[in-house]
């Protein structure tokens, strides 16, 4: 190695750690290549999707009959707490960080992330905190069981008196997850701001990059507030302070403010990149420019802004004054406007198009239908009277699963199928993909649609036993849930077998427009290396016949030859 002298003219991410392996073992090593880290994130997240799903299976097994006969009610409390935590912090955030890692550098024509080592460190914190979180099953007193929101004063009770208990490990795990997410967010935002290819102004960025940027901005603003609250909660739990302890002068509602100030925007952190995936895929598979591209891009930041000022709608029934409830109700409903802009832009793109119904597109369309449904119930829940009526029932559970699984989950599956050829270099099996989609769509609908009615008729959530009048809804829901469990089999089969033996993927199997499709499949270690293309037109020029970059033939030829 020659001595490295700092040269300010070179825009180049630091090279990967020397000696990093170049075969499958690299996915188990401290590798600084964003594409490897992206696949690491997605692989680990899919593993925890199975873990979280398994916890949900036990819960649905318990709820298939009205009395609490399968598991003890206290175990059930631990189950739903861990199900929520695993799904959010070990599946959704990591999988979306995986997409960010794969797509942001390749889409903006950067060689890598701005801080590759920070990136790898952020990833390796995920298994660390997964270990901390899941080890809570083996400490005396069992895992945290006060729900994933962990409200005091329930969560700061420590009946056994141990310092290391389930709740302590839960808060510790969430804190490590927060550090990891902040490290990721700094990296993504810096990369988007500073490392775009020449010619790529903000209004030439793909919508996925816009939405990832907006989502990571939310992380940077919201997550520190939760971290502050979590530090106080940890002190209350373990060191005898009284921030949230009423008998010492503290205020339990203050914690709810800290918690929801982050955890409401967290939904947008997860859903915004999925909006980006929808925008990318709808244009590719309907072969039309994205209708209202600039509005779709800007709507992401409007959602970010509005998402930060509506958290109080989770606290309509915790002594919030009426004027504040009205104000928050109005701002909550306003979010439907930028969201509607996006939905109508997608519908406008689909209008009159010749649509290719491949597996990713099926997931997008399914997710879009579910999102419209979940969005409407969201507006319903944003109104004070309905929220007070159904706030603690299965209606809320049904609503957020329509957003979190039926929209975000579908978008994630769509994205995995769509970019699978690009980043693994192999095509997936279309037939297995369609079986996966069919099982998932039917299972998800059977699972959560009936729970809307169960909730409206008054079935409370967070309980292991319920009134027999809700039995029918729950039997249907449980059948749907088990179907979702079965749906993971064709998916795993597809991913594993196509990666091992699938047909070699061409550079651009979908004939899509975008910088990532100018790279060979899979892309080389530093993407474009020193030949970074100059972007000359807006993204999504389907049917317009305009080249995306200067000297496009050169890049297409090179990606074919590789």
């Amino acid at each position, binding site marked *: 190695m020659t001595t490295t*002298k700092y040269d300010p003219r*070179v825009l*180049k991410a630091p090279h990967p750690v020397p000696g990093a392996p170049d075969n499958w073992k690299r996915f188990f090593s401290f590798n600084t290549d964003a594409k490897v880290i992206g696949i690491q994130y997605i692989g680990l997240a899919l593993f925890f999707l199975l873990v979280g799903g398994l916890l949900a299976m036990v819960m649905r097994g318990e709820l298939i009959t009205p009395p609490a006969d399968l598991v003890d009610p206290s175990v059930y409390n631990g189950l739903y707490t861990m199900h929520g935590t695993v799904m959010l912090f070990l599946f959704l955030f990591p999988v979306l960080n995986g997409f960010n890692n794969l797509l942001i550098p390749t889409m903006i024509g950067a060689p890598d992330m701005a801080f590759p080592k920070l990136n790898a460190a952020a990833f390796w914190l995920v298994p660390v905190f997964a270990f901390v979180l899941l080890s809570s099953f083996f400490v005396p007193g069992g895992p945290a069981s006060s729900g994933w929101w962990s409200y005091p004063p329930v969560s700061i009770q420590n009946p056994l008196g141990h310092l290391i208990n389930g709740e302590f490990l839960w808060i510790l795990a969430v804190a490590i997850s927060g550090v990891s997410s902040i490290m990721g967010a*700094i990296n993504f935002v*810096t990369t988007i701001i500073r490392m775009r290819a020449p010619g790529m102004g903000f209004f030439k960025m793909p919508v996925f990059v816009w939405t990832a940027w907006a989502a990571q901005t939310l992380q940077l603003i919201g997550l520190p507030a939760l971290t502050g609250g979590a530090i106080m909660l940890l002190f209350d739990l373990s060191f005898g302070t*009284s921030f949230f302890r009423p008998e*010492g002068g503290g205020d339990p509602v203050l914690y709810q403010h800290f918690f929801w100030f982050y955890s409401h925007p967290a939904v947008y952190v997860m859903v915004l990149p999925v909006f980006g995936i929808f925008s990318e895929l709808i244009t590719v598979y309907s072969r039309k420019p994205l209708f209202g591209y600039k509005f779709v891009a800007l709507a992401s930041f409007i959602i970010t802004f509005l998402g930060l000022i509506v958290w109080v709608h989770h606290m309509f029934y915790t002594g919030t004054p009426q004027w504040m409830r009205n104000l928050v109700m109005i701002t909550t409903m306003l979010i439907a406007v930028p969201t509607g802009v996006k939905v109508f832009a997608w519908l406008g793109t689909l209008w009159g198009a010749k649509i290719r119904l491949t597996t990713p597109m099926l997931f997008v369309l399914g997710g879009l239908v579910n999102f419209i449904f979940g969005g409407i119930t969201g507006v319903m829940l944003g109104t004070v009277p309905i929220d007070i009526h159904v706030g603690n029932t299965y209606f809320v559970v049904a609503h957020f699963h329509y957003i979190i699984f039926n929209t975000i989950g579908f978008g994630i599956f769509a994205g995995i199928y769509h970019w699978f050829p690009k980043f693994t270099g192999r095509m997936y099996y279309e037939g297995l993909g369609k079986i996966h989609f069919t099982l998932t769509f039917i299972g998800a609908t059977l699972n959560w649609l009936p729970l809307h009615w169960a909730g409206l008729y008054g079935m409370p959530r967070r309980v292991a036993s319920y009134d027999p009048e809700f039995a029918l809804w729950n039997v249907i829901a449980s059948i749907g849930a088990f179907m979702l469990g079965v749906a993971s089999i064709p998916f795993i089969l597809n991913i594993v077998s196509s990666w091992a033996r699938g047909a070699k993927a061409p550079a651009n199997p979908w004939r899509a427009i975008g910088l990532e499709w100018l790279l060979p499949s899979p892309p080389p270690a530093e993407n474009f290396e*020193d030949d970074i293309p100059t972007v000359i037109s807006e993204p999504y020029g389907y049917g317009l016949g305009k080249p995306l970059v200067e000297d496009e033939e050169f890049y297409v030829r090179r990606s074919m030859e590789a």
Partner: protein
Amino acid sequence: MTSTNADLPLKHVPGHIKHDGHNLTGFIIFLCSESIIFLAFFVGYSLLKITSPEWLPEGVEGLETRMPLINTVILVSSSFVAYFAERYLHKENLWGFRAMWLLTMAMGSYFVYGQYVEWSELAFSLSSGVFGGTFYLLTGFHGLHVITGILLMGLMLARSFRPNNYAKGEMGVTAVSLFWHFVDVIWIILYLLIYVWQRTS
């Protein structure tokens, strides 16, 4: 991959990016998110102070303000010293930089010492109701940042003695002195909230 930055050809370097300022961009973004943690603590402190039925623990009249005031003066002036250190570095006066930087570190250390003396003389503890908790959390969390700042300065000082890394050191120095100014501003708000507000209420 054995290539280093120096080996790379310079063609196709984007024109609108003149230097790898993304390190500084990342650091500024980090400071923004850090300030939100402090904001959360400040908001929490204020709300608890306004709404709590009992604030000061029994037997505590109020906080002694002389030592904190001296500490404030020291910390605020150390920020100016850090600024001059950076100025020397830009003028490539390395010894001037090192002297000023060492002075900043000394002032920071004195601040930590002052806080230690103050803590050891206080009549209440972390678990003395909501006041004890908020006081120790806010000052302790800030103190942790001061210590981090001193450690980072030590790192930059050591780096300034290494050959060939002068320019990289300069970037780090800018970042660390930004951090120091940040810690300083946070302290001013903290001082107003904890020590000044207690007198007027």
